[in-house]
């Protein structure tokens, strides 16, 4: 029995080493950049990281400021592009990111992306405030309805997301969720591969549903009003342009305009081609190009 167990353990170790090598060579899982929380309470990435996307089809890059994407050649006439996973955009190669696409279309500005998955509406303003040292002339905030709701603690308290406690008029910065386990999982590629490949959660075993966009309706109107009032009083909003995803709630957009925001409302309804991946609501390269076309048109007209 002991001989059997010893051999099995040795074999498992050998197989795990071989598996780790194969998973790394074939890029069977995406590399995940490591995060830190800086002195302002903002979650960003350790600077100067690079890694492969799933199957190694392209690489991603974290610049020296700790944000995904390349730094602009010049900081003159700088426009910040702030957003969540849509702007972070690890699923597409660098040429499909908003900064290079907009640079191609609007020559008079330079663009810098400051995005991270999970950024809420309130956190976008915290990031913008921190980036004021670069003297941006405008900030484009790519947002969705859920970014508003996630920003308010009274709607649903979330430890890992930066939220506003309206009752106390206080911003609560998000904490990292299980940082130790994540660090192990992201470095031990084979284990991360198993984690993705054989989820323990039964729900995730169901075949993914094809993503079909649909018009959203405004929820939690009072809390959204509280959030917008707080932002209006605590942050500069005149240089912020809110870029709403397609099918965002019209009432929500109107509310933002009434507060004084400039708004770009993206529209994909007349496009016969889908902007998103089949089983993922994120934009494809094609989707990002269409977004950049509409944002560029709006920037030029307001110039």
């Amino acid at each position, binding site marked *: *029995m002991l001989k*059997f167990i010893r051999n099995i353990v040795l074999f498992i170790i050998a197989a795990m080493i071989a*598996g780790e090598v194969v*998973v790394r060579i*074939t890029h069977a899982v995406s590399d995940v950049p490591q995060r830190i929380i800086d002195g302002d309470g903002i979650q960003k990435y350790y600077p100067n990281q690079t890694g492969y996307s799933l199957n190694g089809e392209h690489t991603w890059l974290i610049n020296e400021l700790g944000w995904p994407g390349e730094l602009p050649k010049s900081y003159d006439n700088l426009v910040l592009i702030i957003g969540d996973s849509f702007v972070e955009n690890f699923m597409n190669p660098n040429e499909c990111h908003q900064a290079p696409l907009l640079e191609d279309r609007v020559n008079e500005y330079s663009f810098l992306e400051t995005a991270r998955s999970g950024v809420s509406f309130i956190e976008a303003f915290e990031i913008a405030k921190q980036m004021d040292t670069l003297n941006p002339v405008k900030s484009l905030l790519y947002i969705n309805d859920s970014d508003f709701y996630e920003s308010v603690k009274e709607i649903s308290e979330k430890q890992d997301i930066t939220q506003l406690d309206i009752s106390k008029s206080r911003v609560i910065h998000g904490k990292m969720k299980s940082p130790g386990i994540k660090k192990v999982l992201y470095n031990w590629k084979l284990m991360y591969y198993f984690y993705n490949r054989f989820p*323990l959660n039964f729900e995730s075993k169901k075949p993914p549903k094809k993503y079909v966009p649909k018009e959203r309706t405004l929820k939690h109107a009072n809390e959204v009003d509280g959030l917008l009032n707080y932002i209006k009083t605590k942050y500069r909003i005149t240089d912020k342009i809110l870029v709403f995803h397609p099918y965002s709630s019209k009432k929500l957009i109107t509310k933002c305009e009434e507060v004084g925001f400039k708004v770009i409302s993206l529209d994909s309804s007349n496009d016969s081609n889908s902007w998103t991946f089949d089983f993922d609501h994120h934009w494809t390269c094609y989707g990002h190009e269409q977004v950049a076309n509409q944002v560029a048109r709006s920037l030029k007209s307001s110039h």
Partner: protein
Amino acid sequence: MLFNSIEFFVFLPIVFVLYWFVTAKYLKAQNLLIAIASYVFYGWWDWRFLSLIAFSSIIDYTIGLLLQRTEVKSKRKALLWISICVNLGFLGFFKYYNFFIQSLVDSFTLLGQPLSINSLNIILPVGISFYTFQTLSYTIDVYNKKLEPTKDFIAFSAFVSFFPQLVAGPIERATNLLPQFYSKRVFKYDLAINGMRQVLWGLFKKVVIADNCAKYANIIFNNYEDYSGSTLVLGAFFFAFQIYGDFSGYSDIAIGVSRLFGFDLKRNFAFPYFSRDIAEFWRRWHISLSTWFRDYLYIPLGGSRGGIKMKLRNTFIIFIVSGFWHGANWTFIVWGALNAIYFLPLLLTNKNRVNTNIVAEGKYLPSFKEIRQMAITFFITLIAWVFFRADSVTHAFLYLKGIFSSSLFSYFEIFPVTILSLLLFFIIIEWLGRNSEFAIENVDFMNKPIRWGFYVGLIVLMFAYTGEQQEFIYFQF
């Protein structure tokens, strides 16, 4: 719980350690552990259906004891029929109720008398066809006095629910498996190593061969109108290896895992695609089901002893029932009937037992005659698999029409080189190992580093070419 899931890789070592280190001294405790572990294994899918297994176990255990107490023929027969009705009643309700209702409605509609009977939203309990046949074999064997009924309910429960083969076989006979629960198991290193080897090969068959073939078989079968005849042949080819890799892979894992616990299960597959005629194919494919039908249906019906009429009748009955066992759909019935048609000429000319040895035994390569025989047998099974895989009989006929069209000799629209290379590797290993119980059983001629390198190589292929995780096909049967 799937064999190819993380849950099982946690579950198995826990049960193994408890079995050999905690309960090893007490046979009853070991059997109880197996029964509990089996219920956990099954309940992981849906705990509600554990009641069905428990109920079947209680009924057949009780009937076994009652059969022992009486010698009155009519009483014994009545008891046997109670067991058959209860077990087949569950099977009939859960598996065939909607099929019969729909067929009835369709028949009356065809006669111009539409009926309005609603079908029910019934979930098919995983593995019901397997454990039903297993418990039935116990009652029938006790009735025929081939087996002493057990007085040990825990052993009987463990036999009915034995987790390695509970949901997709092999369908064990009580005469083989039940006595193994009566005697103390001793850990045997060689048996356990052999079991691990079989588990590894079974996982390779499932994860690399079946799941990858499934991807292309699904694409081609679901969009058959868009493809040429040559690609449709490739689709059927992929399905042939999907179902073989899937089902024989499951059997390998089941047999291998059983060996870790000191049990010896029946062989279920014996390299069926190297068969030289359809009779040989059916001696090598799903052996535990074929022999079950042979012993409990074909022989009681008279087998092949009577005249031509009886042979014809019995052959069609056994193949059609076997097809129907696979699922409540006319496609399975046609699949069964087609195999009967393939088989009959051999039976009627007494050539059904010509090829009983291993093909090209003791040689590396087969003769041209053997290649021709194997190719023909494989091709006709391929045609039959089209019915097995198709959604309906119409779908199958349209698929076959697509195959036998002018585009049969055109270029393939789909030709996944990597998967075909893996299949070639798989076929070569299976061919080289065809003298053994499973392909990589006899690899001891390699020295340890090479042997371990080979095992690790298989695991690496599993990591690198793992297909989309799919349930085992035979779970639905």
